[in-house]
């Protein structure tokens, strides 16, 4: 399977080639990911977008080796973090990567922190694990990180327990924990979904600031195209275990070329404007996991679908400028969306 062209501006931090993930074995095996390829350049924010269950998080969990070994089978041509090969790495090697070279923050900061340990202990743990730091050194690092994530009065918060902090504070603590070893890559799995709207923007701004300060790359998993438009450099749209469209944000927003992306765009309200008419929804529902679809998995829900879409798997079509889509009807999709408010706003 060919991959998408992309601008080779900087160093590639993460490079994933044809990642396949199945749960279970034999006839009951469920294909969760099908030939997922993506790469993240140094300093950029790549956003993975899609409905829940489309495989966004599973992709990242598979890369980090965090899926249950018994249930999940991961196969990939390559998973490279800088010069390190993760596809063939042992659990022990992966452990030295996690929390050290790749930091991860999760959706729900309420339950993602251990309630019986202080936040200072939990932040310092990674430094002790990966750098062999002493207790005092770990504490010092934790203090530095709390300061870095703009928590007021960090010395006092060091000995606080998670339940004593607000949701936004806890997510800041999660970020501090993920970044304490200064990783090359931060994976943020819907980091703002569980937070108040006012806090969401603050957290995203913080992630962006820290990215610049620390020169790291970010994979932002989200279902919110608004967040993508505001923060990401590049976007990969996932549907039913496949990346269906990928490219620089402005390219994809200017020229949406997959039926599913088009559907997402139509359901997005335009900032600062009173929307005319009602937002459109995508008809139908996400398909069940099962066999890897022998066709375009979105075809049954797609208004542009032609007989061919239901018969064969579309390969990525290069649309120039690092933009590609797995869609036979990409021209029709774009033509139909040409007068969409959002698309026009990006042109």
């Amino acid at each position: 399977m060919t991959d998408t062209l992309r601008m080779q501006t900087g160093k590639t931090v993460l490079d994933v080639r044809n990642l396949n993930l199945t749960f279970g074995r034999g006839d009951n095996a469920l294909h969760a990911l099908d030939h997922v390829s993506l790469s993240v350049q140094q300093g950029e924010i790549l956003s993975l977008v899609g409905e829940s269950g489309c495989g966004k998080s599973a992709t990242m969990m598979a890369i980090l080796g965090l899926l249950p070994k018994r249930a999940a089978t991961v196969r990939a041509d390559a998973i490279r973090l800088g010069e390190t090969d993760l596809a063939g790495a042992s659990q022990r090697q992966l452990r030295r990567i996690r929390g050290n070279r790749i930091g991860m923050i999760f959706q729900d900061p309420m339950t993602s922190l251990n309630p019986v340990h202080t936040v200072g202990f939990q932040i310092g743990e990674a430094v002790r694990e990966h750098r062999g730091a002493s207790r005092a050194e770990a504490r010092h690092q934790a203090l530095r990180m709390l300061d870095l994530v703009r928590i007021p009065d960090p010395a006092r918060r060091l000995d606080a327990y998670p339940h004593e902090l607000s949701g936004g504070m806890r997510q800041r603590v999660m970020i501090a924990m993920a970044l304490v070893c200064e990783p090359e890559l931060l994976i943020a799995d819907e980091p703002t979904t569980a937070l108040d709207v006012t806090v969401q923007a603050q957290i995203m701004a913080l992630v962006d600031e820290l990215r610049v300060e620390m020169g790291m790359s970010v994979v932002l998993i989200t279902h919110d195209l608004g967040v993508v438009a505001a923060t990401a450099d590049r976007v990969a749209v996932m549907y039913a275990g496949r990346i269906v469209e990928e490219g620089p944000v402005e390219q994809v927003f200017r020229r949406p070329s997959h039926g599913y992306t088009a559907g997402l765009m139509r359901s997005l309200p335009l900032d600062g404007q009173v929307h005319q008419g009602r937002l459109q929804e995508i008809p139908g529902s996400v398909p069940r996991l099962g066999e890897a679809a022998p066709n375009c998995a979105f075809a049954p829900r797609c208004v542009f679908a032609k007989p061919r879409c239901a018969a064969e798997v579309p390969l990525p079509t290069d649309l120039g400028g690092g933009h590609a889509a797995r869609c036979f009807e990409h021209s029709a999709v774009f033509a139909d969306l040409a007068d969409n408010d959002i698309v026009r706003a990006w042109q």
Partner: protein
Amino acid sequence: MLRYAAGRVLAGIPTLLLVSIFIFSLAHVTPGDPAVLLAGDNATPAQVEEIRSRLHLDLPLWQQFGIWLGDALQFDLGNSIYSGKPVTELIAQRIEPTLVLSLVTLVLTVLIAVPLGAISAWKANSIVDRISMGVAVAGFSIPVFVIAYLLVYFFAVKMRLFPVQGYKWLADGWLTTLNSVTLPSIALAFVFSALIARVTRASVLDALGENYIRTARAKGLGPSRILFIHALKSVGVPVVTVIGIGLATLVGGVVVTESVFNIPGIGRLTVDAVTRRDYPVIQGVILFFSASLILINLLVDLSYAFIDPRIRE
């Protein structure tokens, strides 16, 4: 924290009061004359009358209870019918072996059962898990005296590693004491561990599914750190609770084990009192054990605050 502690202590008082009502009424709700019962099987009518007036059995029940409770609060639990000695004195004389046996059992149990339960949860459905949980079911099922005699037969009679029975007092050196309680403690720990290991396994299994374990894994922590620092610490409350509640089962086991190994503790005192139908002693021992258990479970409640910071507020 102080309010929590005060609340727990206050909650213990009505329980203790109800327990004493219960124990007091045992002798009065059963058919027959309590004076005859308390006098024992070989008492003359004059002795029965003497007991009736001395124990105020001619007064209304609630007054009798008031007097009995007042005495009990001053550590006066009456006298033994058999030896005539005060019940509190008998208990005090025999408290050391029971305490030593219980403590050694408790330490053994915690050392064996908690790691075993945690590892079984980590390796759920593996061979290790199946074997340890199989052994745990056996621990529930084999009566403690059967295990005790098996141990005695192999380790005392056949291999002569430990004494067959008896207890060496701490005053004679703690090593010989430890040697004398090894087999009884192992027998008791086998039964007690079964309970603790199962509850630990179930709690850790739940904890391992929590989001914060995923966070710990994403941090790159190793299995032992995840299991013992993150999962096990967060299940401290249920595990300590079960240890506290399980002590009630342990007391039953202590009574039987002391009898098997001929250890002169409170359990032995109980059995002797039962065979002699020495009712004041039976009543006193039950009150002693129940009050101790209530006290221990109060301490368990207070320990929650140290284990789980969320309870401190």
